[in-house]
């Protein structure tokens, strides 16, 4: 009798404990940690193993995807065994916990860790105050990187938006709209590394007199000029030849979004303007542009943020030589080539600071929505 009482008591207290905030947090952390440990051991085993490549690939995919799914199933099974009250309290943390844990581990906490690191010396041992930031803003290579990034944003982002808008509007009135849009959109599917190869080939230079195999030099020489190494000489204008690649890739993105926005303009509005005798140009500037202004701002912001972090194109095309460094390539060089962690962290923090206005805007938008 006495024993049974104790047992019921201990069961409830365990359940109680699980239902407490502390218990909820612990469940939320334990699930991903267990997943992680199981998969981690498996992967070190796989990495050090010597099986044929295809087998490793297959096992890895099944293990990875299956493992994550399994953890959810098992934990849910455990939670549903608990008294309903506790199930109800714990289940949300099974749903949301893993995502939050990963977000904190991979983005939220690193932001703080990188900030602390940016106040330390190159090995991350001793605090040096704001020295890294002072160095970042006075370093000649870094100033060039800032200037170049500005050039990328001003020229690259704005031309992507302009071309995107142009194509969207032309395609809207054309008979081969879908074909044209697909072709302009296609570079979006290509990696920036692949795009680097494509454009390196366009810019390829051979000595004067030899047949030029790069398209640009072939045209340039046919017009009676000397062949040029486009991405290497004439600094800082050589940056423009790299920026062309960004425009080539991002125009498709801008176009798709603008195209949808234009189709959303009520037809009556445009017809009415036509009846009143407005020209096409007037319709474009007085009706279409104001109507899709919100979309233009969103697209511009997205492309600017993308351009701010541009890395692959520069790294593959020039490796930052010939005065083409940008912020992200400087970050990479400092962090992994020079092993100057403190300096690199300061560069990364500057990148984050640059997007803070957008972050605040997003949060405001979110706060205004009443849905949550």
């Amino acid at each position: 009798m006495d024993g049974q009482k104790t047992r019921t008591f201990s069961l409830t207290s365990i359940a109680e404990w699980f239902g407490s905030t502390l218990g909820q947090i612990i469940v939320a952390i334990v699930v991903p940690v267990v997943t992680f440990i199981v998969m981690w051991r498996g992967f070190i085993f796989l990495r050090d193993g010597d099986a044929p490549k295809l087998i490793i690939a297959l096992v890895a995919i099944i293990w990875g995807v299956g493992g994550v799914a399994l953890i959810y199933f098992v934990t849910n099974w455990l939670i549903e065994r608990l008294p309903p009250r506790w199930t109800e309290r714990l289940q949300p943390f099974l749903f949301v916990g893993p995502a939050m844990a990963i977000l904190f581990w991979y983005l939220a906490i690193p932001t703080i860790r990188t900030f602390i690191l940016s106040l330390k010396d190159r090995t991350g041992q001793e605090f040096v105050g704001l020295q890294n930031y002072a160095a970042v803003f006075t370093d000649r290579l870094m100033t060039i990187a800032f200037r170049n990034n500005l050039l990328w944003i001003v020229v690259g982002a704005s031309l992507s938006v302009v071309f995107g808008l142009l194509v969207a509007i032309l395609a809207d009135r054309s008979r081969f709209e879908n074909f044209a849009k697909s072709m302009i959109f296609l570079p979006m599917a290509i990696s920036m590394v692949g795009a680097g190869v494509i454009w390196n080939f366009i810019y390829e230079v051979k000595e004067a007199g030899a047949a030029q195999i790069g398209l640009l030099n072939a045209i340039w020489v046919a017009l009676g000029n000397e062949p040029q190494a486009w991405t290497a000489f004439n600094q800082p204008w050589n940056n423009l030849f790299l920026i062309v690649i960004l425009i080539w890739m991002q125009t498709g993105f801008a176009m798709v979004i603008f195209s949808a926005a234009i189709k959303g303009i009520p037809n009556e509005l445009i017809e009415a303007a036509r009846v009143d005798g407005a020209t096409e140009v007037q319709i474009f500037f007085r009706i279409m542009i104001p109507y899709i202004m919100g979309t233009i701002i969103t697209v511009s912001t997205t492309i600017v943020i993308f351009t701010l972090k541009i890395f692959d194109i520069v790294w593959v095309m020039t490796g930052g030589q010939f005065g083409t460094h940008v912020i992200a390539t400087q970050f990479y060089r400092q962090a992994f080539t020079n092993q100057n962690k403190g300096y690199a962290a300061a560069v990364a923090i500057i990148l984050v600071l640059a997007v803070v206005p957008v972050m605040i805007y997003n949060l405001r938008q979110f706060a205004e929505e009443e849905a949550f």
Partner: protein
Amino acid sequence: MKSSKRENLIRDIIINGTLLLLVLLWTIPTLGIFISSFRTRFNIQTSGWWTVFPHKEWQLVEELDIPEGTDPDGVMNIAGATGTFDEFREGIITEDGRQVIWSGNKALGTIRIKEKRWDFLPELTLNNYGQVLAGKTYEIQTADGDTMTVQGDNFLGAFLNSLTVSIPATIIPILIAAFAAYGFAWMNFPGRKLFFITVVALLVVPLQIALVPILRDYVKLDLNGTFLAIWLAHTGFGLPLATYLLFNYIKGLPRDILESAFIDGASHFTIFLRLILPLSVPALASFAIFQFLWVWNDYLVALVFIGAKPDVQVMTMRIAALVGSRGSDWHLLTAGAFISMILPLIVFFSLQRYFVRGLLAGSVKG
């Protein structure tokens, strides 16, 4: 009435003409490497890829000995062309459209006569793909005339690695984000709003912020160079957008479905698996394409987290390495780049509708 018809026609021509020009400009770069990937190493190096199209080219039609008694130091008259030795060396074009060239030096030479003829049949080959995929060898002529045998590259392994990285790095974040999105949309728990604000705030954070700290964690955990390391990294960087997009979608599903399912005694987990996941397929597909292309095309994350392990290298890393070490081996580069594009292009063309929908759902990613 008639003039407005003409105006319309002119407008049509201007619109379609400009559009066609833009399409051409946008397509030619890709076309260039696509065509080049089928040309031999020698042809790529000595003539532009556009020469595969039918074009007129000087072709040798006759080779003559130097006529007896020609004085190379004066003005000569050979095969209907008149000029000095230097002019003949450059090639003289006669009135009937033939080119007469002195080949060799003054003492020992021949006269070559060329005519412009149509070249219809380009020389194409699949060898580049064999060399870049399976490491087949190829021969090159060095400057002093020797032949050298060079090993191709092993892109097949890199292709498999890219698949092994991309598939789980697409599915895992979607699964985790779908659970979270359901939780945020239809469950009540303390901290719900605060957590979601975190998600929104992290939407635009550049991933550069995480590279150094995460690399440290990976070194401590001995995770570097494993597939798990890179899946988790891509999961982490893709999660804010995935959660945000899926939340918006799942929140919009009719609430009565949920309530009637509850009355029938279904649990959250069952509702999620049986009802919400199937209903969310369009949103899941949109994000899946987005994430797959992003991971497949990623270079930076792979470079940082698997850079040190050559046998785990993905496609983009192999190509970048090839650009660095063999930048003028265009036959390998073009074929390799094209192989890396095949899968994204297939995904892109077959699922374009979903992809566009995903983009439209709002995409500001860090």
